[in-house]
């Protein structure tokens, strides 16, 4: 029997919510169990479907774990519109969500063995970088010095607060945190996370940087990293665009000549420098 193209291309797989964690106002992390294999890599994303309401592209937020005949994955979702609102408000332990993916090109961790890695994350932008941190932790010997620069508007808006302390304990990892606004009891930096770039001490030619956050923040991060002497091709950004299909058929995620969903979402700055500075390209 011929499998219909539609079934092959656009079918969602059933995922059961096995855990929900409140991260920050209107942000939750969902642990999902999917029957069978789901081979998703850090930096890639799934289209998460709230049945009947709609789909949204959501990045992988933790390394996938095989357990019995299923795969456990995590996604951190912030409520912004129709689909994400419904997921945040309605999905509970035991709920069913649809998963279509994995899609996109992730962080090229394999290519960067034996290098230093500087992670720069803003707000919810830590979500796609969390599996990177987990991967490095598991494969610590493969990488050299690691910096994690993470900032949010306020400390309350930070993700994974319950495990940030653990990052400090990973050998050879320096963590720098920032809050945009001054808040009582905050002992870390106050200001933009991108300011912290000047404090890193690495040889730029042996270092790559992975950046994710709001686009304005990523632009500033690129400037700071370039000032530090980073090579254009060693700065990686995870970009976001309006995205309907995830597989390059709907066309709406175009950024210059790229389809963010399949050519990205992770791009080396050298590939996007022509476009990143032009409004609305």
């Amino acid at each position, binding site marked *: 029997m011929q499998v219909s193209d539609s079934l092959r291309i*656009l079918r969602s797989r059933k995922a059961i919510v096995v855990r929900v964690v409140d991260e920050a106002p209107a942000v939750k992390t969902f642990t999902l169990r999917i029957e069978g294999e789901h081979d998703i890599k850090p930096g890639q994303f799934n289209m998460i479907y709230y*049945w009947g309401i709609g789909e949204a592209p959501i990045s992988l937020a933790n390394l996938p774990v095989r357990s019995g005949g299923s795969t456990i994955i995590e996604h951190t979702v912030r409520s912004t*519109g129709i689909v994400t609102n419904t997921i945040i408000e309605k999905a509970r332990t035991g709920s069913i969500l649809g998963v279509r993916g994995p899609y996109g090109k992730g962080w090229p961790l394999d290519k960067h063995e034996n290098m230093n890695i500087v992670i720069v994350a803003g707000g919810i932008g830590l979500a796609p970088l969390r599996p990177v941190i987990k991967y490095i932790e598991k494969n610590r010997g493969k990488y050299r010095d690691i910096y994690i620069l993470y900032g949010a508007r306020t400390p309350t808006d930070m993700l994974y607060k319950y495990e940030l302390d653990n990052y400090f304990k990973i050998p050879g990892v320096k963590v720098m945190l920032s809050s945009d606004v001054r808040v009582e009891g905050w002992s870390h930096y106050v200001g933009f996370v991108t300011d912290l770039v000047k404090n890193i001490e690495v040889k730029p030619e042996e270092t790559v940087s992975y950046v994710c956050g709001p686009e304005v923040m990523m632009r500033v991060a690129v400037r700071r990293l370039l000032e530090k002497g980073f090579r254009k091709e060693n700065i990686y950004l995870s970009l976001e665009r309006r995205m309907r299909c995830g597989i390059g058929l709907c066309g709406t995620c175009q950024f210059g000549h790229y389809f963010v969903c399949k050519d990205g979402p992770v791009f080396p700055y050298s590939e996007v420098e022509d476009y990143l500075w032009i409004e*609305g390209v």
Partner: protein
Amino acid sequence: MGSVYDLDRLIRILRENLNLQLQGYRYHAGRVSWGEINGIADLPLSVEDYVEPGLYRLKEGYRFRHSSVSPKVFLLPSEQVFLYESEDYARVKAPDTSEMRQTALFGIKPCDRRAIEVLDNIIGSKNPVYASRRKSIAAIIVEECLEPNNNCFCGAVGSGPSIEGGFDVAYARLDEKRVFFKYGSELGRDILVKLDLKPAGEREVNEYREKIESTRELTSRAFSRVMREVQENLLSKARDKDLWLKVSEDCVGCGNCNFVCPTCFCLEFEYSINEQNMGVKTAQWTGCLLYTYGQVAGGHFRPELYTRYRHFVLHKFVFYPKQIGLIGCVGCGRCITWCPMGIDLRGSVNSVAQGGVNAGK
């Protein structure tokens, strides 16, 4: 060599001997739309399109070139159903495509044929609806153009007015009666053998060649620079906001240009629940000129109209070549004709490529 009555015989061979359904420009009740062709009476043989930017009139004549439809409406329909899924994902159903009949595209233009090539490359098998419709096409019959309309510029982008490959049979109307046929494939040759036409004489071949060349000449004048320079200038001027504001100053973001363009393929996904309580994934045409195209929850990637018009132009001339190695504009002029504000793509490209409004300052 044949006559318009041989077109009727051609239709019959395709329908009866090859058992194909025919899809093409269909004349009915004073307008030319897209639909099934059952006989010569369905063809727009005695009408001619008169166009200007923002204006279209169908009048008497024998040189029909365009209407607002194109093969896109068959290959990539404006509403597409992808999938039905039950709430627990246990039951899944795709729309039945087994009944998709084998099809011949009839009377499409050389520029239309190029548009299909563009679509094949940019979406190909990624869209299941497109893939199944594309697979159903068993024959392509092209009408070459011996006289362009005012907005045609296929010569400038190399998509017409003649066709060299990717078709089975092509025909061109030397005048109201006489039709010049050629084949482009084994199948096409077999069909012409069945048609049993008398060979064209030297005079007729020359007449055909001359008319093709004059059409090529007329449709090649659109741009004041060679294409490579046009493309380089467009990209280097991408940042010149004032320039793009100027060329898009009349644009109201209605999206007609996207919808009529034979290579615009962008889709909006929609999700609904039907009476059988199945979740339905569907899609419909959208376009980069529309506001919601780049809109996201709590933000917008192209809120300003000039950035959207710019994307349209850059996608066609700069980004498509990088994506698939072909210019995305096939020079059909539909976006010019059907823009209610009469914005002329050729003019926009020229003013940008020439250095634009700021050039003299």
